[in-house]
């Protein structure tokens, strides 16, 4: 029982009357958060250094004569801390009034309105009336390059942006110039932030509307957006994101913190590459080739006829899948293929240069520019084609057996793709020229319209949730293929939910048997390592 040396040292303090025990060295602001107390702050950010300069987070610690900045002060044993005492409130009110001295109050035209910490704190704790009679300082705005626009007059000089570029991006593009109330954030050279892949993170970090995204400029009001937790589909890193939507359109993508994957950050490539999710002209009903032309039919007709055709088929099966498809889609297709006698399948993936984030090196814009390459590989689909994500399907194009296409648009495929096939099944979103040859065209949803999981480069399986309405009769591919599977296999059950589809993946995907859907949570879980599959992304 003498083994106490390894236990982390803890201290116990009282915050607003609540006693809490935290590890020694915990910042007061973090301890307060653990106690459920939000201490207003601007300059502090958990993933950046704490310069203690906004002076918003001052709290009263009994027996300490001056107010203590809770972002740099650590908790000592027996501290009695008051965040709502008269002294602390008066200090915060004073600081908020100081911010108002030069703030333009242009909330009606400011993109940050509705998610602005200045607005929030002023309305919660600020003075009811301003006492300023003096003319305000006017600095105007500046194009910082990249996607970033700077409204100097709204700035609260928290320097989060400067510190992000210095400490995390490790590419010092920003600095504070001048001093006193003339101090302003500025770029060093003409190019500004241009060319830095991580610059848009400073827009997220900015607590006010000083740094805004050009892409999002005046596009939507924050309170009109619906926010859905998701996973960035644009590379195999699998950054946790929120899809922010309005009127059934993705308006922007924002990172969602996950210390194991992307901390608080994401790259500009992933963030700004969302227009494809909003693409229209979707297939909205199942189509069946009847007498040389497609006829729209009901799902039950389409799937009954397809099951009949498959049951009779003895031909070899080839598949082309998309690395943007969910694990559930890919795994259910693999189960279908196994049922009809096995078959090979390929996926094509665009690749590019890998770009790490120096301050959080496990976060990279990955070579593979699709979310679920690891998932496709886990279900035994193999890579084909070139670095631009095209080619590699010539042998499938002329295949004279059964062809399954899942999610791949076949945009580069020859116009006679699949014309020699005995059965060509196309499960996807867009009716490309090649897809028009299919005997069965089954409309499926994108990741943004369904529930499911992706497997990232670290083999971490992460959930996403539906953010957009499904177009027409489109359904998640796992559901379409799951119903089909139940039609051709006696053991298979129709999956009613993504969780049920996931639960059936263990039979066909290495490691999936060891994961429960409910265990994935919002942060995901890494697939258990299995023998030769032990190599993973760093």
């Amino acid at each position, binding site marked *: 029982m003498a083994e106490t040396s390894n236990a982390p040292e803890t201290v116990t303090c009282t915050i607003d009357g609540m006693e809490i025990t935290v590890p020694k060295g915990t910042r007061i602001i973090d301890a307060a958060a653990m106690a459920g107390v939000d201490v207003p702050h601007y300059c502090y950010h958990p993933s950046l250094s704490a310069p203690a*300069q906004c002076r918003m987070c001052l709290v009263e610690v009994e027996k300490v004569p001056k107010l203590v900045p809770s972002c740099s002060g650590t908790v000592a044993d027996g501290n009695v801390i008051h965040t709502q005492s008269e002294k602390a409130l008066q200090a915060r009110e004073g600081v908020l009034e*100081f911010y108002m001295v030069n703030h333009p109050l242009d909330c009606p035209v400011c993109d940050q309105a509705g998610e602005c910490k200045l607005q929030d704190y002023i309305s919660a704790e600020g003075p009811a009336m301003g006492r300023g*009679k*003096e003319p305000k300082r006017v600095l105007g705005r500046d194009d910082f390059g990249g996607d970033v626009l700077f409204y100097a007059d709204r700035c609260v*000089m928290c320097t989060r942006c400067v510190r992000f570029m210095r400490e995390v991006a490790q590419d010092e593009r920003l600095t504070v110039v001048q001093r*006193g109330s003339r101090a302003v954030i500025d770029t060093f050279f003409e190019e500004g932030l241009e060319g830095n892949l991580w610059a848009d993170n400073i827009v997220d970090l900015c607590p006010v509307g000083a740094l805004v995204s050009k892409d999002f400029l005046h596009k939507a009001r924050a309170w009109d957006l619906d926010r859905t937790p998701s996973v960035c589909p644009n590379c195999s890193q699998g950054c946790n994101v929120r899809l922010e939507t309005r009127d059934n359109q993705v308006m922007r993508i924002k990172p969602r913190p996950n210390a194991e994957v992307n901390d608080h950050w994401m790259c500009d490539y992933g963030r700004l590459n969302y227009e494809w999710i909003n693409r229209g002209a979707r297939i909205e009903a199942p189509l069946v080739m009847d007498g040389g032309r497609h006829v729209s039919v009901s799902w039950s007709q389409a799937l009954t006829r397809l099951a009949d055709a498959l049951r009779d088929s003895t031909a070899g099966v080839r598949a082309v899948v998309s690395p943007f498809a969910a694990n559930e889609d890919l795994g259910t297709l693999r189960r279908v293929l196994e049922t009809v006698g096995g078959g090979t399948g390929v996926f094509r993936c665009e690749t590019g240069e890998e770009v790490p984030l120096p301050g959080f090196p496990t976060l990279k814009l990955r070579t593979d520019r699709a979310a679920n390459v690891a998932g496709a590989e886990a279900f035994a689909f193999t890579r084909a084609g070139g670095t631009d994500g095209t080619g590699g399907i010539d042998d499938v194009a002329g295949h004279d057996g059964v062809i399954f296409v899942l999610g791949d648009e076949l945009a580069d495929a020859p116009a006679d793709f699949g014309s020699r096939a005995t059965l060509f099944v196309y499960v996807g979103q867009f009716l490309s020229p090649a897809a028009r040859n299919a005997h069965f065209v089954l409309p499926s949803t994108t990741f943004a319209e369904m529930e499911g999981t992706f497997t990232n480069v670290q083999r971490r399986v992460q959930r996403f949730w539906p953010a957009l309405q499904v177009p027409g009769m489109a359904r998640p591919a796992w559901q379409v293929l799951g119903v089909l599977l139940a039609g051709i296999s006696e053991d298979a059950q129709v999956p009613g939910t993504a969780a049920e589809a996931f639960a059936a993946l263990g039979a066909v995907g290495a490691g999936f048997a060891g994961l429960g859907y409910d265990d994935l949570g919002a942060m995901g879980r890494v697939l258990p390592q299995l023998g030769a599959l032990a190599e993973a992304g760093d």
Partner: protein
Amino acid sequence: MAYPYIHPSETRVLSKHFGEPEARTLKGWEARGGYEAARKALSMERSAVVDEVKASGLRGRGGAGFPTGVKWSFMPKKTDKPHFLVCNADESEPGTFKDRELMRWTPHALIEGLLVGAYAIHAEHAYVYIRGEFFEAAQIMARAIEEAYEAGYAGKNVFGLGVDIDITLHLGAGAYICGEETGLLNSLEGRRGEPRMKPPFPAISGAFRFPTAVNNVESLIAAAHVVLNGAAWYKQWGTEKSTGTKLFCVSGHVKRPGNYEVPLGFNFKEFIYDVCGGTPSGRPIKAVIPGGSSVPILTGDELDIGMDYEAMAAAGTMLGCGSVIVMDDTTNIVKQVRRMVDFYAHESCGQCTPCREGTTWAAKILRRIENGRGQPDDLETLLQISENMSGKTICVLSDAAAAPITSSIEKFRGDYEALMAPVPALAAR
């Protein structure tokens, strides 16, 4: 005729050789007993040097008055890490010009002080961070350091005693905030001159994040005297808690502005009326700033006090760095305060919100009042701004800006109200 003016009541210890150009040379300095103190210190135990300075009660002359020996004793015992001594020669407090004179006339005295201080704290490198505008003083210091290196009094094996102490002169660029010790360290390292959050204090993490002692020019020179002559000798002057002599810089409405060295505890009234000769016009004194622009103002009736840390504190002000600014009854206090607050608004580094916004806001209000456009609630607003920026920031610049505002409103409210009279425009004409 000696150094501009020497008054018989002065006790000239540090300023003894002011006005003697030969004292600037190594030869001339040694002829005046120079480098004995440094030689003696380097032959003593390092801890004995610290103890002697501690025993003397010498308090830092940069403004805060923290005991020099105690500051040195906070330095960690020698570890593998390098230690640094940094001499704060930025002297930027408005009204202060004592360090400039010390360096102009007795540069080798400072080098001695650096050797004593560096030796005491195990530092092998001493920096002199000198204010950018002090061009003449910097040239004189540079020449003296060169001479010291040539004579083997600096660099490797100082005095042949096996101690290495390098001395580097570093010119600032003229920012007030770089006189704040951690702002100075950032500037010395090539960063923006922004004060650092304390703790950690410089004794733990100072220059280049290594243990560092930052001392004022006058403190270091006084420490050398203490080591040479002993703590008891030094304590013959001053009061019980404010020992020794101090240089006071006098400017404003006095007959004889300049530097005067008197023992601490000297009567302030006698100092102004006798040593400095009172006002040139013979008009009554309206206000005195006793310790540099950052300290609360005294009225002309509050001068019968001792010039020491305790007596000044009891009078509600501070001895600061000993910069006395005298104003006679022709002075418009509002204009003076506005001028000072303008200075702080200009010099605020801009890190902390209360200082960055508060100083500028207060300056704008004061300018409006000065121009006769004051409004009845302005004084209340000024007092609240002062309250909201006092004790709430990383360094004390905003406290310094608040001090003249609050003390002047308290003591010279009439001056403000006169400008807010019903027809202020007529009054101003």
